[in-house]
C-alpha cells in the first residue's frame, strides 16, 4: 500500500478527534490536575488537556490487556454441570497520541496474543481500533528506542502517524483505516507540499540525534547470546530488587498473566486474569513447592534474557521497546538501562 501524506493544522486537531470520537471511544494522553499524564478515556473533549509534550506514564497495554479482566462467570448448581458465561468486551476505540514505542509494543503483543491460537479478549479489543501515533522529535529523558529499533518514528503498524512541524502535523497513512479517515474527513487535511516533506524528513533525521542516553542494546544482546554475562551481574542486580513487580507491570510488552477464580457466592464466581511478574518467586513455583527458577538472580536473568535475547531469537525483535518507563521507577536502581550499561562497560 502506498503511503499518502497530508498536512493537518494543529488548530483542527481537536475538531478531527471530535469527529472520530462520534462512533468510537477516544483514548488520548491527558494531563490531569495532578500533573500526571495518563492515557484516558475521553468523554467530552472540551476542558481536557491532551498532552503531547510529556510521555504518558503508562502505555496502552492496560487498554488491550487489562490489569485485571474477568474471563468468564461460572455458576454451579448442586448436581448439574457448571455453566460458563464469557464476558463481552467493549466496542471500537481510537487511540490517539501513542508514541512509536507504544505502537511497537502493540505489534509485539500481537505476536503473543494473535498467533495460531488467538486470545479472544485481546483480539476483540484490538479489532476495529484506530491507532494514530506521533513520532518523537525530541525523545524523553530515559528513551532509547533507536537502539531497540522501535522509534523515534515507525514505518508501519499505525493507521496514521503524525510528525509535529510546529503549527501543523505531517500525516502519513499506514493502514487502510488511516486512508479511510483521510478520505472521510478530507476537508481537515491539505496536501503535503514539497516543503512539508522536506521539513518532515529533516525532523526525523534530527530526532535520531536527540537521544540523551547512550544505551548499547546490540552489545548486550551479543553478550547474552554468547553467554558472556558474568553471574556477578545477576547477583548484584537481584540483591537490589525489591520484588515490587513494577517493571513488569509498567512494561508495555510484558504480557505474563495469572488466572484466579473469585467467588461471588457459594455457587457462582468469576475466573479472572491478572497481570503477573516473572520476578516473583511464586511465578514458577509448582504445587507441592518445587521451584525450577528458585533464586532471585535466576529470575532476574530470565527477565533480561527474555527481553533482549529469547525474543530476538524467536521473534527477531527485542521485547524491550526502549520507552524507559521502568528506569526511574525501579526501587533498587537496577533497571534495564543499568543492566545494559553494566554489561556494555564490563562494570560489575
Amino acid at each position, binding site marked *: 500500500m502506498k503511503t499518502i501524506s497530508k498536512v493537518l493544522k494543529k488548530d483542527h486537531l481537536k475538531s478531527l478527534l471530535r469527529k472520530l470520537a462520534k462512533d468510537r471511544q477516544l483514548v488520548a494522553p491527558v494531563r*490531569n490536575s*495532578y*500533573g*500526571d*499524564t*495518563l492515557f*484516558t*478515556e475521553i468523554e467530552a473533549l472540551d476542558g481536557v488537556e491532551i498532552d503531547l509534550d510529556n510521555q504518558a*506514564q*503508562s502505555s496502552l497495554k*492496560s487498554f488491550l490487556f*487489562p*490489569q*485485571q*479482566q474477568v474471563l468468564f462467570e461460572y455458576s454451579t448448581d448442586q448436581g448439574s454441570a457448571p455453566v460458563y458465561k464469557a464476558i463481552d468486551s467493549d466496542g471500537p476505540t481510537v487511540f490517539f497520541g501513542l508514541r512509536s514505542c507504544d505502537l511497537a509494543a502493540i505489534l509485539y503483543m500481537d505476536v503473543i496474543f494473535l498467533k495460531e491460537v488467538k486470545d479472544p479478549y485481546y483480539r476483540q479489543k484490538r479489532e476495529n481500533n484506530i491507532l494514530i501515533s506521533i513520532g518523537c522529535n525530541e525523545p524523553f529523558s530515559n528513551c532509547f528506542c533507536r537502539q531497540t529499533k522501535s522509534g523515534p518514528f515507525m514505518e508501519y503498524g499505525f493507521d496514521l502517524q503524525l510528525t509535529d512541524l510546529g503549527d501543523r502535523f505531517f500525516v502519513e497513512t499506514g493502514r487502510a483505516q488511516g486512508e479511510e479517515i483521510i478520505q472521510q474527513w478530507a476537508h481537515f487535511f491539505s496536501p503535503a507540499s514539497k516543503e512539508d516533506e522536506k521539513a518532515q524528513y529533516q525532523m526525523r533525521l534530527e530526532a535520531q540525534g536527540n537521544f540523551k542516553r547512550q544505551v548499547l542494546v546490540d552489545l548486550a544482546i551479543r553478550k547474552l547470546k554468547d553467554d558472556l554475562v558474568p553471574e556477578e551481574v545477576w547477583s548484584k542486580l537481584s540483591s537490589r530488587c*525489591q*520484588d*515490587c*513487580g*513494577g517493571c513488569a*507491570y*509498567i512494561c508495555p510488552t510484558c504480557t505474563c498473566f495469572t488466572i484466579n477464580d*473469585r*467467588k*461471588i*457466592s457459594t455457587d457462582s*464466581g468469576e475466573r479472572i486474569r*491478572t497481570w503477573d511478574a516473572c520476578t*516473583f518467586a511464586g511465578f514458577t513455583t509448582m504445587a507441592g513447592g518445587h521451584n525450577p527458577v528458585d533464586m532471585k538472580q535466576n529470575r532476574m536473568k530470565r527477565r533480561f534474557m527474555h527481553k533482549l535475547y529469547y525474543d530476538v531469537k524467536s521473534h527477531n525483535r527485542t521485547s524491550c521497546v526502549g520507552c524507559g*518507563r521502568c528506569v*526511574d*521507577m*525501579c*526501587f533498587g536502581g537496577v533497571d534495564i538501562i543499568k543492566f545494559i550499561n553494566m554489561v556494555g562497560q564490563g562494570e560489575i
Partner: protein
Amino acid sequence: MRNILTTCVYCGCGCGLYLHEENGRVVGASPSKNHPVSRSNLCVKGWHAHEFIHDSSRLTQPLIRKNGVLTSSGWDEALTYTAKAFRKIIDKTEGTGIGVLASAKCTNEENYLIQKLARAVFKTNNVDHCARL
C-alpha cells in the same frame, strides 16, 4: 474506565495511587508519576491494593449475635441494640467501663470522631489503637 487518585491503604509511606473504576468496580491500581512519595512506582502491595475490595467474604450486612450465632440484621436494629448495650454500661460505670479501639487503618476524620464519641458520649478516655504493635 475512570482513574481516581487516592492514598494507599497499606503502609505509612503514603503513596499516591490511582484506582481504576469500571462499572462500579475497582479493577486496577497504578502509581502516580508526580506524587512526591510514589514517584511513578508502588510496591507490590500498592499495585494490588484494590484486590481485596471485591472479595466475596466482605461483610455486607450488620450482624447481631442471637442465641450465640452472628445473624444478619438491619442497620437500625444493630445500631439501636448497640446503643442500648453501651448506654447500660455507661450508666453503670460512668464511662470507665467502656474501651474504644480506634484504627490506624481508618481516616483522620473517623479517628477524630471515634475519640469524640469515646470522650463526649461514652465519657471515657479509654481510647487507643494499635500504634505500638
